[in-house]
């Protein structure tokens, strides 16, 4: 995992590409919809969340691609540690460089949409809980499409439907707090999804990698 982090930091440009993609997508919405603060405030959680999902999808292709090309992945299969643990490390490292910057940038973008301080706080928490789950679920898709032609488009077809619960609870949490309903229920469900993803996704990803490298 340490190695992954170092490698990723070295490829700073990749990190920045994902981040700028996220920022640009979010900034396009006011231009497309109009500058009315009321409308923008209403759609802000959904826009930020959808953009975050698209941005992390963009980064998904790089999750295993490098290790697949240079043969590190095959060594991982033969390593004494269980593959799912190694996968978990890789995914967390991937999240730290592709997901975490989005989370930190999100409140700033929320300000552009005229969100309140409370809403921004909930948005931050929901992204902290939700984006790791997105990375974990996406890893299964990335492993399945490893080395497949047209893999980039294919992976979005496979994993986007599976992201729906995260999107609903993530954006829903912010919306609930803004409308005064309280975000606790949404956030705890988001936490439950993250816990489930932590349990099952590394295992499924490991199985998918075994299939892909067979």
């Amino acid at each position: 995992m340490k190695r992954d982090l170092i490698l990723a930091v070295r490829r700073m440009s990749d990190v920045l590409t994902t981040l700028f993609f996220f920022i640009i997508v979010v900034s396009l919405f006011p231009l497309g919809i109009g500058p009315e603060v009321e409308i923008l405030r209403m759609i802000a959680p959904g826009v930020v969340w959808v953009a975050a999902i698209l941005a992390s999808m963009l980064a998904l292709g790089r999750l295993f691609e490098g290790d697949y090309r240079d043969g590190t992945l095959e060594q991982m299969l033969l390593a004494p540690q269980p593959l799912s643990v190694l996968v978990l490390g890789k995914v967390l490292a991937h999240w730290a460089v592709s997901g975490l910057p989005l989370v930190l940038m999100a409140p700033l973008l929320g300000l552009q949409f005229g969100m309140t301080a409370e809403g921004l706080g909930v948005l931050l928490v929901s992204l902290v809980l939700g984006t790791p789950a997105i990375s974990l679920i996406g890893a299964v898709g990335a492993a399945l499409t490893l080395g497949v032609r047209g893999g980039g488009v294919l992976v979005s077809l496979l994993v986007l439907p599976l992201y729906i619960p995260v999107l609903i609870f993530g954006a829903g949490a912010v919306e609930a707090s803004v409308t005064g309903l309280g975000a606790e229920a949404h956030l705890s469900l988001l936490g439950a999804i993250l816990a489930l993803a932590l349990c099952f996704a590394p295992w499924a990803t490991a199985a998918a990698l075994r299939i892909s490298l067979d």
Partner: protein
Amino acid sequence: MAFAGINWFKYSSPATFYPLAGKMMPWFAGLAAVLTVIGLYMSFFVAPTDYKQGEAYRIMFIHVPAAWMSMFIYVVMAVYAAMGLIFNTRLSAMMASSLAPTGALFTFLALWTGALWGKPMWGTWWVWDARLTTELILLFLYIGFMSLEAAIDDPRRATRASGLLAIVGVVNVPIIYFSVEWWNTLHQGASISLDKAPSMATIMLASMLVMTLAFWMYTIAMVLYRVRCEILERERHSEWVVALMEERK
């Protein structure tokens, strides 16, 4: 594994299953045709006009069976995929991929007929109700399954990868349904409750069940036909297929 004195694993060999499927296929196809005729007769001539929905409710006789089959087929597909991955049986993997197109077809039909039923009844083609949304996601899952299988050149890897995807999908469908339901209750204003199912007369229920059975038999016939193609394609270099081709000449 001897169940009632039959060795089931014997039939899981493609070479033995191929002729067996060929023999069974016409029976299921025939049953499907007979049941469809009975079902259509019951739906249009026996079942009375609904006092609330008029004649439009007759769409239900294909809508509900199609929706049931779309979910049922996905579960069966995932079970076959799991069997294929765990026991490494070639035939169950082939069954899974043979089921997918018919499942996708019923999912599409459930959505299509649902829209055509919704328009006259609720005045809208589509609502973001949990059931409708989940059905739409189910269609995406079917399409993902088939695209993944089509994109991978190595047939062994293709079936195993898509099999894993089917299992991941089947775990997710209830979660998706639940989350959309939750989301929907939050946005009550815009949605229409579809839960007020009118108490159905026995005859309506009966014709719906007959139609479901007809769709089921159709699915089995279709899958048997398709799995025979699948077997021939994948085993084309094996001795028995070569011998079979010699015989046909």
